[in-house]
């Protein structure tokens, strides 16, 4: 059986409400097309403070500040039953305040695209220097800053986009080209924000695994942004750009894209390289999506509830050869939504869940948890998009009934026991199964779980190239306790196998 070990994981959020107010796609398009509407005037009064975002239970579950099981014990709405005194840091990562995140974008900028106001830059430098994951090399990339008048000149006359903190202009994102719209300030803001979010998770991954940056062999990046210019608008490569800033001098990398199915496909691409021995290790990394900030904000304002979509998401997972001591990802029974699989919910669920289970000789009840589309339901329900993780596990349960794996009467028990609550912001690729890898690996290591399935689904049809969706899945299992993996068959194993075959052959010849 081909398996790879999961050595560590990191999950981070970047609190970015003021960036979202201006550049989240819903408010941005509204402002560009209709001006300062009532929605845009009202939205600021529904923002969460950083402290409130920190005390929002799903955010804490995401960064490993609390077990995911505990979340289910807290009555909803979670925004009405906040935790108290939650930490900035969880066991997987952190919730970074917006000023530091703007500083991190500047750290990621190697083309003088981001300008920071001098006083703001100094303040951010001090704060970032206290971070447990920043080192001198990363921090030295932060610029000294510019006079506010220079920044105002850029935004007034050179199409730069202002960056805000505390309601004041603290910097700007400049155009990367005069006529190439792939390099305009809005696109570069998106890309630098995603790069910065990916970097933060990679830095936490290094800390969580005790790895030096130089030890990382390869990086696979799997967000939904496109880096390029007008001649090659999706050319890439976020992975290598992130690895450079993190100091991973011996790493190379590439990007994997498949809308929200990117992370699961990225995990498979990375794991395959490790399993076959092509790479010593692979870090799978993604940052968040600025356009998705306040995507459902209009409905949240209408319902007079907090505009919860104020965080960019990020994650990183380190895959290494299976040494028997780590939770493993199986590569022998991957779920694949093929071109001809069909688009009905039954067809998709069969391709991603039933098919791999049957090939593994397992039934629905052999998997403790199914993690798909882990959107926080309090974000999607008010917008009429339903409880997405619940809808997915219900479909799995329905298929289990159809295949006579469970009785119809037990369907809701299956849903309750084997579903996972949504803990991720509506950041597209981020909720797509991968937020559960950390919690699942903890449970697998501690013997609280025997198997989990991670499922990713992507809306390819949004790009107007195909009507198809995409999907992929894989199984997580506990440490084998012995040297496993595809490439660890010993010489003695081969000798005894040959002797067995020869003995059988000689028996037939007699």
């Amino acid at each position, binding site marked *: 059986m081909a398996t790879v070990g999961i050595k560590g994981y990191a999950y981070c959020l970047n609190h970015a409400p003021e960036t979202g107010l201006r550049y989240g796609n819903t408010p941005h398009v509204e402002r560009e097309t209709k001006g300062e509407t009532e929605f845009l005037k009202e939205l600021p009064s529904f923002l969460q403070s950083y402290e409130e975002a920190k005390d929002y239970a799903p955010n804490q579950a995401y960064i490993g500040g609390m077990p995911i099981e505990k979340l289910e014990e807290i009555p909803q709405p979670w925004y009405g039953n906040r935790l108290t005194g939650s930490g900035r840091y969880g066991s997987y990562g952190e919730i970074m305040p917006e000023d530091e995140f703007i500083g991190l974008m500047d750290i990621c900028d190697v083309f003088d695209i981001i300008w920071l106001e001098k006083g703001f830059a100094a303040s951010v430098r001090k704060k970032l220097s206290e971070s447990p994951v920043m080192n001198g090399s990363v921090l030295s990339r932060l610029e000294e800053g510019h006079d506010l008048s220079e920044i105002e000149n850029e935004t007034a006359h050179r199409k730069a986009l202002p960056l805000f903190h505390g309601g004041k202009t603290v910097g700007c994102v400049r155009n990367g080209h005069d006529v190439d719209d792939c390099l305009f300030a809005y696109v570069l803001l998106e890309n630098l924000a995603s790069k910065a979010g990916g970097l933060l998770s990679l830095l936490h991954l290094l800390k969580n695994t005790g790895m030096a940056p130089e030890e990382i062999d390869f990086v696979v990046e799997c967000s939904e942004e496109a880096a390029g210019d007008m001649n090659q608008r999706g050319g890439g490569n976020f992975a290598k750009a992130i690895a450079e800033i993190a100091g991973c001098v011996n790493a190379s990398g590439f990007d994997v894209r498949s*809308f*929200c199915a990117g992370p699961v496909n990225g995990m498979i691409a990375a794991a395959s390289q490790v399993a076959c021995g092509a790479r010593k290790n692979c870090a799978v990394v993604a940052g968040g999506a600025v356009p998705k900030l306040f995507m459902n904000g209009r409905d949240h304002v209408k319902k007079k509830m907090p505009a919860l979509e104020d965080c960019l998401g990020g994650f990183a997972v380190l895959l290494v050869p299976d040494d028997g001591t780590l939770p493993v990802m199986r590569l022998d029974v991957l779920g694949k939504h093929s071109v001809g699989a*069909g*688009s*009905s*919910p039954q*067809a998709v669920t069969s391709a991603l869940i039933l098919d791999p289970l049957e090939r593994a000789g397992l039934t629905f009840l052999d998997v403790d948890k199914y993690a798909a*589309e882990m*959107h926080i339901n309090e974000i*999607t329900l008010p*917008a*009429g*998009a*339903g409880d*997405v993780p619940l*809808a*997915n596990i219900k479909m799995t349960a329905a298929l289990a009934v159809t295949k006579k794996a469970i009785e119809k009467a037990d369907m809701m028990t299956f849903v309750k026991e084997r579903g996972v609550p949504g803990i991720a912001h*509506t950041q*597209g690729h981020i*909720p797509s199964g991968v937020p559960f890898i950390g919690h699942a690996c903890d449970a697998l290591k501690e013997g609280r779980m025997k198997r989990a399935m991670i499922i990713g*689904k992507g*809306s390819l*049809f*949004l790009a107007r190239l195909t*009507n198809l*969706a995409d999907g992929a899945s894989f199984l997580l299992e506990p440490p084998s306790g012995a040297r496993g993996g595809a490439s660890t068959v010993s010489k003695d194993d081969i000798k005894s196998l040959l002797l067995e075959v020869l003995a059988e052959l000689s028996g037939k010849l007699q």
Partner: protein
Amino acid sequence: MGKLAGKKILLLGERDGVPGPAMEACLKDSGAEVVFSVTECFV
């Protein structure tokens, strides 16, 4: 042929629910004319 025969149909599908092409397949023999079909993603 059922009660949809001769009707014009607009289909709005959803990725985590029922996508447009799946509804189109269901309506294939209904006698209805699908004049618009789309799948949206709300997350």
